[in-house]
């Protein structure tokens, strides 16, 4: 009896041993039309992509209006305005990690695609910051702005506008659920006049500790 029990336990161990092998990791390519994965703890592509699309579209729509003071090019069409995208400031509650450079490139590429702006190379902007050793936020001071634009102009990259992006967030908590509102603000500063233009886009996202958290907090019968 004792031996039978022992053999039984040995078989259990052996079967368990044979089935409990370490697995592999697999990957797959996501189709461009497929929806983004939704981050469970913080913002990801599902937040940043629409934020960028909306904010840049608003900016381009407003700046596309051709006024009388727009200089005309040799072909009689209004000349493209030169933008220096200084950088993104993350003021949100989350660390955006490797998304920062991606957001920069996404905004930069969208501006380049437009008909009214030409964006300056990031390397040129870096060279200007390196030479002047100024903080991006210090460039708004008139003297610093003059010095910075003079350096860029000397390097063959005259600039009309400085563009700043700022990511902010606001958090609302309710028991085990949290709502976080993400806002991307684009600020365009005319280096000739000092006037600025500001646009923003917002995406709200809910985080829940339970599966029913979404329904409980956002159902149409609530309030």
């Amino acid at each position: 009896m004792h031996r039978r029990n022992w053999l039984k336990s040995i078989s259990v161990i052996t079967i368990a041993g044979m089935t409990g092998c370490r697995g592999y990791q697999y990957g797959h390519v996501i189709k461009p039309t497929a929806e983004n994965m939704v981050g469970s703890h913080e913002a990801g592509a599902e937040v940043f992509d629409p934020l960028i699309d909306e904010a840049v579209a608003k900016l381009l729509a407003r700046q596309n209006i051709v006024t009388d003071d727009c200089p005309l090019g040799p072909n009689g069409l209004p000349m493209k305005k030169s933008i220096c995208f200084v950088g993104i400031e993350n003021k949100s509650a989350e660390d955006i990690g490797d998304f920062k450079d991606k957001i920069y490139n996404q905004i930069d590429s969208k501006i380049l695609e437009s008909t009214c702006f030409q964006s300056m190379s990031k390397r040129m902007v870096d060279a200007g910051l390196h030479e002047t050793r100024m903080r991006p936020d210090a460039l708004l001071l008139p003297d610093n702005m003059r010095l910075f634009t003079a350096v860029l102009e000397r390097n063959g990259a005259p600039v009309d506008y400085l563009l700043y992006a700022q990511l902010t967030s606001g958090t609302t908590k309710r028991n085990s659920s949290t709502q976080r509102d993400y806002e991307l603000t684009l600020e365009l500063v005319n280096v000739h006049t000092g006037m600025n233009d500001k646009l923003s886009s917002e995406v709200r996202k809910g985080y829940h500790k339970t599966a029913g958290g979404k329904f409980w907090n956002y159902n149409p019968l609530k309030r």
Partner: protein
Amino acid sequence: MTPRARYPFKARLSLSLHNQNLGNLAACLLVLLLTGCSTHSKRISQPRNLFYDGQLQACRDSLENLAKSNRHDRDVVNLDLAVVDLLSGQAKQAEIKLRDVRDRFDHLEQDSLAEKTISMWTDDQARSYAGEDYEKILIRVFLSLSSLMHDGVDAESYTLQIQDKHEELGQRFAERNGNKGPEYQPLPLGFYMRGMLREATLRDYDDAVRNYEIAASMLPNSQPLLWDINRVKSGVHSQPGQGVVYVFAMVGRGPYKVEVAEQPTSDALLIADRIVSAVGPYKLPPTVAPIKIPDIAVPPSDVDCVGIRIDNSPIGPTSSLANIEQLAVSTYRANRNSIIARAVARRVVKKATVVAAKNSMGKEGLTAVGMDLAGIAWEATEAADTRCWGLLPRDIQVLRVEVPAGDHQLHLNPLLGNRPVGPSKSTPIRVVDGLNTYVICWFPDARSVSQIMCSNRAELLSSN
């Protein structure tokens, strides 16, 4: 009288079967014996001594032999080899080795029931070593340092991986223990390095502030971190015409595991009881003799920081950003009860096996005594799993200094209580306007003979 004449046929058959069974059991025990006894701490002692004597080539040869002869030691030996490579100026090779071990450890984080089962019959050394939590973080820290020492292309990615791993380990710790306890301590160095690299972009000061602040929250008494925060909040990376030198000082001999005999605690017995109950119809005996488990040993150190001078101008001492000794001890304490429980469960399984084998072969006096002795020998061959990254420093310290661009002479002096305790070492460095220059030095003790590595060393040597 011959045995044939002494015993009737039936008795002869029974004796022959018993002898055959005994032979089989002895053969099994011999196989198991071969897997036990020697521990990693014994095998690594010679290469470790060679390393601390500054004989890097001999240490490398010894480690390579060890990696070839002991399959289960290969990953930890590769970590030690990576340190030897890094300090002998082969940062690229170090990075390749560290990357391999990082991927292996990530893969080994999944449990293997096969290995668990085998380890119940042998010892914990039969399990693949998946690395301690602090080792997983330090692999990424050393990856980042290795990258900075040759091209720096992947350094920022590695610093992001440090943070990801911190988060992952923290979550796993919370799942295991209910919440993040005091045993879970992230390394401030990872956050510091991320801040350092973001500051060097001359653009992402906000990221630098965020990371320095996290590091400062873990080391509230660190004055240099407060200076860093102050600088990135309102100042700039460096003034025009100046560059920055970062000295990473590896100070003291790091912790390693040794084998000790331990009396099981009541918590460990409780966990062991659960394991044993799951395996078969056995109960834990009320008392268990001392068992062999690993413990953390930290050699005494006669250096507590490194004094820096540049061109004979005193700059100051390095300050700690990764107390590896403290981290290793706290990580070990968090897992100690599980290690003891596994050892107790193994003891019970082995005892039960011997009893079952005795029952199956009858209860003849001499055979029973022989099997008991074999059982004792089987238990005695069990050895603690002392595998660990053996060539770690006790502390990783950093000093940041802004100096005019150009060639300088860097002097390093081991200090104990702010007093020099060993000869000064020096190396030429080249500082580039607006960029960082990285220096790695290792002071296992005051009389160490290891080298100082500089990130643009190759460039310096070619120009000289």
